[in-house]
């Protein structure tokens, strides 16, 4: 039993929580962030990696569009390491209703979203694999963003302002003293220890899980409707620019180049349980068909992984409950002092990654207004550190060849453990030494271990051996982590298994079962 004291506890380590804890800490509050698993393991790590220009919303949600355009500029400045300035295209594909595109430029102008129409020839020169049958193309300032890097960067900034970040701390109780929140009780799932954090204020940023957290504070019936969407990563950047269909927001209308892959997304189906998000076969087929419209031959290229994320949408009486795409994407703040007579608790719901900083600012303003205090928000002014190096961002945005450059520098001095993603041994050792309780999936999210075409076939045994040699784990845990990693890779592999990835999967099975006989290693206790 451990006890900590704080002014504010932030529940949830997605983009909203990370943004809030950074803002709260910068305004001088003693802050603790808790998450039941790793940072950005939920929705903030399960999206298509699009940093919106705002173009997607100019017609359907003009206010959001303007916010996106503004925040895009701010984030590109303060979190350059997690953002690639790919630029974006809105294209009218064969058969698309032309009327949407006719109003597109005017809507962009009205919402201050920079956009220019270019000729189809120029669009095809820029992206030669695009469908040559497109009839119009508009350039916008979409980018791609690594949600994990972004959240870890915000958390690292918060830590510099004294905040504590506690991952794998699952909230079990929220205590009150009279009509005010007094403590958050958690279980540390890595050690089993109970941790009580005394506080005056709790900000519930648990996203799709926010209703469950509110319930722990005896605030029932907070309705968050998770909207499930699937994404599929292809093993190459079929495009180097974000490509959007210039139509009303629809399934499978975005293709985003992120790191070494490109990601097609997404679908939108009401999900009863954010912890059970399937990747249904028919949605996979739907995404591949959608990819084929943007890039002919899409089905012949290689899908390497799929995942499913849950948008935390607020229930809105304006549309039917089964149609989550057309609910408001704006954020909403539930003040439980008004709603349930409990002071010191706000529940946040909705929003989007691109505007996470702005949302955090609004939320902390709301907290201060309840507390009767006031400080300036400075999160847009200060640059975040690059969490992987600890250094401040130098203003250079990410480019896909960064790692290649680094490996060319150190190739005579260090081993490459993961050839697909050019992860060096030092990168892995440094991170596991700094986070000795991490699982390989925790490390993967920051290092991209096992995220390339081999899906762990070659690198996961290396990671296990190197972690053992680093002395941070023992043989039982090492073996358990290896098994868990392979098991978890399979979750996103089997629903899209086709083409060359079948061949890779057979090779990986020959390695792990055929040569190593890993399935007959003695069982280990379950690892976290």
């Amino acid at each position, binding site marked *: 039993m451990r006890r900590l004291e704080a002014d504010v506890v932030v529940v949830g380590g997605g983009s909203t929580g990370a943004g809030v804890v950074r803002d709260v800490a910068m305004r001088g509050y003693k802050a603790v962030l808790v998450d039941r698993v790793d940072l950005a393991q939920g929705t903030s790590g399960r999206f298509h990696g699009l940093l919106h220009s705002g173009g997607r919303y100019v017609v359907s949600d003009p206010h959001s569009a303007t916010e996106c355009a503004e925040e895009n500029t701010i984030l590109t400045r303060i979190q350059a390491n997690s953002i690639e300035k790919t630029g974006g295209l809105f294209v009218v594909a064969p058969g698309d209703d032309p009327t949407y595109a006719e109003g597109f430029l005017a809507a962009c102008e009205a919402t201050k979203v920079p956009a220019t129409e270019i000729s189809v020839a120029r669009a095809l020169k820029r992206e030669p694999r695009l469908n040559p049958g497109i009839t119009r193309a508009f350039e916008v300032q979409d980018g791609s963003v690594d949600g994990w890097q972004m959240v870890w960067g915000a958390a690292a900034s918060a830590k510099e302002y004294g905040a504590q970040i506690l991952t794998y701390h699952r909230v079990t109780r929220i205590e009150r003293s009279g009509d005010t929140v007094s403590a958050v009780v958690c279980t540390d799932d890595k050690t089993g220890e109970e941790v009580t954090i005394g506080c005056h204020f709790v900000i519930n940023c648990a996203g799709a899980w926010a209703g469950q957290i509110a319930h722990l504070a005896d605030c029932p019936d907070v309705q968050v409707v998770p909207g499930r969407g699937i994404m599929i990563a292809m093993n190459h950047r079929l495009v180097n620019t974000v490509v959007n269909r210039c139509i009303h927001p629809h399934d499978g209308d975005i293709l985003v180049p992120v790191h070494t892959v490109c990601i097609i997304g997404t679908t939108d189906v009401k999900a009863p349980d954010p912890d059970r998000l399937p990747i249904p076969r028919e949605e996979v*087929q739907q995404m*591949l068909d959608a990819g084929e419209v943007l890039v002919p031959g899409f*089905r*012949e290229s290689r*899908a390497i992984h799929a995942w499913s994320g849950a948008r935390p949408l607020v229930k809105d009486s304006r549309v039917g409950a089964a149609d989550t795409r057309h609910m408001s994407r704006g954020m909403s703040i539930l003040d439980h002092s008004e709603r349930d007579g409990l002071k010191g608790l706000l529940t946040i719901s909705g929003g989007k990654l691109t505007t996470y900083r702005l949302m955090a600012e609004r939320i902390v303003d709301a907290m201060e207004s309840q507390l009767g205090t006031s400080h300036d928000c400075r999160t847009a002014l200060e640059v975040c550190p690059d969490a992987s190096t600890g250094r401040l961002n130098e203003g250079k945005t990410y480019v896909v060849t960064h790692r290649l450059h680094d490996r060319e520098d150190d*190739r*005579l*001095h*260090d*081993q*490459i*453990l993961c050839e697909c993603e050019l992860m060096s*041994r030092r990168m892995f050792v440094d991170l596991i030494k700094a986070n000795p309780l991490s699982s390989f999936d925790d490390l993967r999210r920051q290092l991209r271990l096992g995220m390339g075409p081999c899906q762990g076939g*070659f690198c996961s*045994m*290396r990671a*296990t*051996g*190197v972690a*053992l*040699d680093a002395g941070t784990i*023992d*043989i*039982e845990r*090492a*073996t358990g982590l*290896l098994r868990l990693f*392979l*098991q978890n890779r*399979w*979750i996103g592999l*089997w*629903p899209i*298994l*086709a*083409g*060359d990835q*079948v*061949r890779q*999967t*057979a*090779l990986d*099975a*020959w*390695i792990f*079962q*055929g*040569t*190593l*006989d*890993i*399935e*007959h*290693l*003695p069982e280990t206790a379950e690892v976290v």
Partner: protein
Amino acid sequence: MDVVVIGAGLSGLVAAIRLARVGKSVTLLTKGIGGLQLSQGTIDVLGYSPDLVTRPFEALPRHGKPGHPYRVIGGAAVRSGVDYVAELCGPDLLTGHADDNFLLPTAVGAVRPTCLAQPSMAAGQITAGTSYAIVGFRQNKDFYAALCAGNLARSANVTARAITLDLPARPNDVDSSALAYARAFDDPSYRQRFATLLKPKLEAGEVVGVPAVLGIKVLDAWRDVSERLGHEVFEIPTPPPGVPGMRLNERLTQLAKAAGVRIALGSRVVGARTSGRRVESVTFAAAGRNRDYAAASFVHAPGGFESGALTMNSYGSISEGVFNLPLAGVRDDLVTGDYWSDQALFEVGVAVDDDMRPLDAAGRVVYSNLHCAGGILAGATRWSEKSGEGIALGSAVRAADTIRRA
């Protein structure tokens, strides 16, 4: 041309040698070097059924569901294939009594059954009470002594400790592959450097396990290392490309060439010309233009899904790329979310009669002069039951002997 063989894995090479040695003119067509170099370099017959198998040929007749390749190949042909490959490779490359499985440590410290092993691996045979010193190299990223030793001590009633040497394959290397080490170990002076560095770290009676890198051309390098150390030494196969598999591949390829097999390497066989129930020729997509190879008989040994001989497209439709053969085992839900269970997808393949001729769904022979061997055959998850080489050899012998009799 008497025979065209497609594929340069174990079954293709062995079938080609067996036919060429009885005077058939044989051409072997292959896209690449063949799957042996990706293998662990042992001859598996049956390791799990589903429990651990110690006597493979006793377990074989009862093994598997109807449709398993062993049901049609039969134990006698498998045995004759295993004996044949042992004879071809000779005692400096393969050892063991086919009746009893070896139990050998793997690189992650599991205990793996196999029928024949390379002599360099034999001292690894698990015996209760053995003390192992498992030795890795800091500069090789595909073998970790602590992972192997740690699990070995958990897997069996033995003790095992890890030693990691700071010894690159070439001066100043930080990232030396297994093959780079194997080439270094071909040189006696490197073996001496290794022994000098390791010997003081060893304790009396320890059996020394090293990754399988003890020579690629010099096949008794392991024996020399053992003598220099004064300890029993054994090799542990590593993930691909694996040196023991390369040794087998090299030996069998040389034997095939010596027997007069013509090998055309580097292109895919993309189709076939047929007439009724006979294959007339196959089309090799050689550089410049396609070339047809006509023959009286054909051995189709291109591997399974791992080689791309069987493919599944994004709609889930599975096909065999050369002859468009009917496939057995196709149904819905071939892949499931349970990583640790066998996936039915990998049992899809070609069903054959006991002459290894492909059958359609009604059980009729599709082509009377086409014989399938190895990974293309339906009905087994080879990596899980440890049966890959047994199926390859048994079917190669059946195919070759049918053609020989014809």
